[in-house]
């Protein structure tokens, strides 16, 4: 059963893993896409092609292999810039993932700019990766960490931001573009507009948004923007930090080492140009090259289509889930306000038990706190189950999932 917007049948053929069976004979139904997505054969081949045919280190050597590898690596930077609509390719820094991007900012920007009694504002629905680095910075500098709360509809209570901003002590507001638990799409424009008026910096954790919707950084007027390749068909170990050039120039390096230097003397070193100042050491060349192919793949489908497909699938799933007696769904039921992530609890079945049961039917979902324990506390639950969709998921798979949930209810006699 297709959704109306994309040709899933032909897409599914590109993902070898979707042909495998789990628990002997069950077709794999992969609903753990908010954790990481599967990889199309084109991405896998791009990576192996690099190792098979032009493996070499980049930027330094002058031989042919190095030139090919450097060109492929740098070509990805151009593609990323175009994908998120950034004008200056020098503003695209490759890192290991969103977590490292945020740590880079807290270390290199934070330690220069955040001082005692300053305020760092984050939200109750952040992933631990957008909380813990700021806690470390706050502890080191004596700054205070404040939270924008989440209402019962799973949306941020933005009035609380006004209160913090009025204090005049906020240095940065950092938030997730889309919640990895509730799927809520943050009203980024409103937050950024408020921050601009007060000259406050903004970091957007886009790990869950860039893979699933069109993002335009010319319109989204933030200061820092971070996301990961592996959540958008790309390999693990590659992420992007984007920041405005003036900011990156004003910041000290994060890691010291090769490639990030201009001249090294015994006691002093000058830094390389952007973005290399922040890319010390041999980078993850193969996977950056693979990432380029993942972007090609998504662009061929069209991010507007990706979003439309996920909205249709999410609506279909929410309609069916809400008919199950004892089902507790988290987050808003307005499809336009959320991505393809559904968190839920079924009766008194603990999410780990539920995930174990439906795994037997070949269905991979996530269960636990989803690295968002602050939000779990807010929702007053120890854990939730989470199903999250991508371009290769079908309504038919949702039907199997729903049947499996009824089987779990039977096993638990509810």
């Amino acid at each position: 059963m297709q959704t109306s917007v994309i040709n899933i049948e032909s897409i599914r053929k590109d993902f070898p893993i979707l042909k495998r069976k789990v628990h002997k004979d069950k077709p794999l139904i992969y609903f753990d896409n908010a954790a990481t997505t599967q990889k199309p054969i084109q991405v896998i081949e791009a990576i192996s092609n690099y190792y098979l045919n032009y493996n070499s280190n980049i930027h330094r050597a002058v031989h042919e292999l190095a030139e090919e590898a450097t060109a492929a690596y740098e070509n990805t930077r151009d593609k990323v810039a175009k994908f998120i609509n950034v004008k200056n390719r020098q503003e695209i820094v490759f890192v290991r993932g969103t977590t490292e991007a945020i740590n880079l900012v807290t270390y290199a920007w934070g330690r220069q700019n955040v001082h005692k009694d300053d305020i760092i504002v984050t939200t109750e629905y952040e992933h631990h990766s957008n909380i813990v680095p700021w806690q470390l910075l706050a502890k080191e500098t004596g700054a205070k960490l404040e939270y924008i709360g989440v209402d019962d509809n799973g949306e941020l209570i933005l009035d609380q931001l006004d209160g913090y901003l009025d204090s005049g002590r906020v240095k940065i507001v950092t938030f997730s573009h889309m919640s990895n638990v509730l799927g809520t799409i943050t009203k980024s424009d409103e937050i950024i507009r408020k921050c601009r008026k007060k000259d406050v910096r903004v970091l957007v954790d886009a790990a869950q948004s860039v893979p699933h919707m069109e993002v335009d950084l010319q319109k989204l007027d933030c200061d820092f923007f971070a996301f990961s390749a592996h959540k958008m068909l790309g390999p693990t170990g590659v992420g992007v930090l984007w920041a405005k050039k003036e900011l990156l120039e004003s910041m000290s390096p994060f890691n010291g080492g090769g490639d990030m230097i201009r001249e090294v003397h015994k006691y002093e070193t000058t830094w390389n140009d952007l973005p290399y100042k922040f890319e010390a050491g041999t980078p993850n060349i193969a996977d950056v090259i693979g990432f380029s192919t993942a972007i090609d793949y998504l662009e061929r489908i069209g991010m507007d289509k990706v979003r439309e497909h996920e909205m249709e699938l999410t609506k279909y799933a929410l309609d069916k889930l809400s008919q199950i007696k004892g089902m507790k769904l988290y987050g808003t039921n307005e499809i336009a306000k959320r991505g393809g992530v559904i968190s839920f609890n079924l009766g008194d079945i603990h999410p780990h038990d539920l995930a174990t049961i439906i795994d037997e039917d070949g269905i991979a979902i996530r269960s636990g706190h989803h690295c968002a324990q602050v939000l779990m506390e807010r929702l007053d639950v120890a854990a939730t189950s989470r199903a999250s969709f991508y371009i290769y998921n079908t309504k038919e798979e949702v039907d199997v999932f729903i049947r499996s949930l009824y089987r779990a209810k039977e096993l638990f006699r509810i």
Partner: protein
Amino acid sequence: MSSADIYREIILDYYRNPRNYGKIQNPDIAQKDSNPLCGDELEMHLNIKDNKVADVKFTGKGCAISQASASMLTELIIGKDFEYVKKLTKEDILDNLGLHELGPARIKCALLSLKVLKYGLYSYLSEKLKDTASADRIKEEASGLY
């Protein structure tokens, strides 16, 4: 091991109606631990009298396996000799639960209560009984459980 074999009536019963659930005032042993991967939490309280487990209670939140396992463990050790409790093994717990073929992720749920118990015994042996040799042995067992 299929879900039908795991979630038998008895496991669900202990999950929904846990025996010995609660706390002891001023216990001889109080120990808690959590599984950082899934957030399950467990706290055990014990009183030791005349070298026997005079009382034992637990509190916690988590899946059916972890909570049933904890509750069944309290029933297994109450009134037993302290020596018996010191010697409890992973196999004893899995026998008691009737769960033998759990995968690597779920076996942690089943063994969390034993881990908490062993760390509790370690503190008791080292701090109150000053029996460092036994204490160290139990600590090593606890850390090697999974």
